[in-house]
């Protein structure tokens, strides 16, 4: 019985996506579809506290429902909710069949939640692939537009290759260790005799490479800008938050279980990746003129920051990771949310010129965007600052000086391109811009953006409650 209680969010999400499928099959209507998407998501969010009463709970060897998993589940569900609400207006511009988008969205969310709760390679694989396969379709969803198709097929092939790498790594580890359970793996590792084995290490490297791809860490980042640019804006929002968040949650759990900080090779590789991601992400972002590409590179850099927090390990590192994820979700949903509400599938507003003088037309929207960008840059009064502060603190505690130094350089470089966007927002508008903005925003999108902005401020000024909460969650993981 407690199995069921623990699984409630996941089960309801599954049921919800089935129900949504039927709804779409019988009453094809956009607004109704949105409702049928939002309702199960809200319901699942409601279930999280109930599921939390039985944590930690291992459901079969595959899934573990603990506070950590529920934390990410909540985050993912909320992000999916935001994407659905933000995407509503965007999809109205699609012309035909916007409904399946929501089905795929729910499925991808389901995959992400499975990933967050998985404690076993099989559930890892299942979650990851439910997520990825849904994403392929989501990315190419506006199927009459060439950029989407290009993005979809690029992601499909590269993501497929990375999945194969991940799988090969798992196979190697399985061949060597004879188990697919993280927990069992760690007990085997604690005996200490196998960890230097070539197959095992190769497997580990393969796994890290595969996951790095999904997290678009350098040097596995090459797909990122193109896919971000070509994908429909709400999907980009989803990709950058939910997909990466879930994979990272999994990686962190895996890292803790195999006690990654004891594997020198692993930490060296990850440090190198973090170092490269921060620098390359920030440097390449400087060269872009396309907002989605800028945000793509910025997300590479931010994932690098998160990796620094992961490497800092310890309870503070874990807290920093979780806090930063919350902030990262809000910031990126906000940023891509703005892009989403201004765009339609036929006309993605993504060039810097499209945003020139936005402030003088839509001050609230531009203000919100500014705020989000400042948060991405880590300026005080925004939650992004607290997040960065957390990471700084964690890396000071762990004495990761070179990485810390890289963080500073990265943050400074980051300013250049965030400020470029902000400047564009406040420039005097060019004449033709006025007519290309949508006349009104859908209520759902406006409310969602306002909420995101509010959260950024609230947690930027008074983060204590969130910190307390995250601390209790992090305690259960370690």
């Amino acid at each position, binding site marked *: 019985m407690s199995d069921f209680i623990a699984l409630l969010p996941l089960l309801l999400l599954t049921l919800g996506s089935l129900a949504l499928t039927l709804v779409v099959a019988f009453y094809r209507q956009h607004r109704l579809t949105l409702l049928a998407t939002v309702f199960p998501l809200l319901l699942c969010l409601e279930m999280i506290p109930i599921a939390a009463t039985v944590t930690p709970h291992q459901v079969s060897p595959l899934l573990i429902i603990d506070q950590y998993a529920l934390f990410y589940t909540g985050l993912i569900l909320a992000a999916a909710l935001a994407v659905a609400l933000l995407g509503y207006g965007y999809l109205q511009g699609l012309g035909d069949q916007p409904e399946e988008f929501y089905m795929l969205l729910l499925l991808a969310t389901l995959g992400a939640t499975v990933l967050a709760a998985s404690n076993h390679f099989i559930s890892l694989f299942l979650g990851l692939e439910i997520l990825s396969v849904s994403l392929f379709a989501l990315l190419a969803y506006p199927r009459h537009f060439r950029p989407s198709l290009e993005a979809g097929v690029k992601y*499909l*092939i590269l993501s497929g290759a990375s999945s194969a790498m991940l799988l090969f790594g798992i*196979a190697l580890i399985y*061949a060597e260790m004879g188990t697919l359970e993280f927990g069992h793996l760690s007990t085997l590792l604690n005996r200490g005799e196998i960890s230097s084995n070539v197959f095992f290490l190769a497997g580990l490297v393969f796994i890290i490479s595969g996951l790095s791809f999904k997290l678009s860490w350098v040097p596995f980042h090459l797909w990122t800008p193109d896919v971000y640019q070509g994908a429909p804006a709400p999907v980009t929002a989803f990709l950058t938050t939910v997909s990466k968040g879930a994979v990272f949650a999994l990686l962190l759990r895996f890292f803790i279980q195999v006690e990654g900080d004891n594997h020198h090779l692993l930490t060296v590789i990850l440090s190198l990746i973090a170092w490269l991601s921060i620098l390359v992400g920030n440097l390449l972002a400087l060269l872009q003129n396309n907002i989605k590409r800028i945000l793509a590179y910025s997300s590479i850099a931010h994932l690098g920051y998160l990796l620094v927090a992961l490497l800092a390990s310890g309870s503070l590192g874990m807290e920093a990771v979780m806090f930063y994820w919350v902030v990262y979700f809000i910031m990126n949903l906000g940023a891509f949310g703005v892009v989403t509400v201004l765009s339609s599938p036929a006309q993605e507003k993504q060039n810097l010129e499209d945003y020139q003088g936005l402030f003088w037309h839509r001050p609230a929207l531009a203000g919100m965007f500014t705020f989000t960008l400042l948060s991405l840059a880590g300026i005080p009064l925004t939650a992004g600052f607290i997040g960065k502060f957390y990471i700084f603190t964690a890396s000071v505690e762990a004495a990761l000086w070179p990485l810390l130094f890289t963080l500073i350089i990265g943050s400074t470089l980051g300013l250049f391109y965030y400020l470029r966007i902000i400047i564009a927002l406040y420039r005097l508008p060019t004449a033709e811009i006025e007519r290309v903005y949508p006349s009104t925003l859908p209520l759902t999108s406006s409310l969602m953006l306002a909420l995101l902005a509010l959260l950024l401020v609230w947690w930027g000024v008074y983060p204590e409650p969130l910190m307390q909460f995250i601390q209790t969650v992090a305690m259960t993981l370690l």
Partner: protein
Amino acid sequence: MISIPIEHGLYLAAALFLLGLMGVLVRRNLIFMLMSLEIMLNATGLAFIVAGARWGEAEGQIFFMLILTLAAAEAAIGLALILLIYRHFGTLDADRISEMRG
């Protein structure tokens, strides 16, 4: 039954995997890239079968079935996408459909 050392199986899988990887990296035709992808996935499937055989557990085979499913799903979506791409771009050359630059 004849028993084959586990390493041989893994080496074979690794060779296949590399073959597929090279295909993905080198080929420029989307169909071939997709096929190379399937080769990679099947190579991992083989690796799982070998590994499962070593431990005498069904997990390897279960994983193989799951991988097959993934391969099928990926092929399904991949082919649909390729079809659309052919319709819109008139080519399957990966370099020529790559229009985004930055």
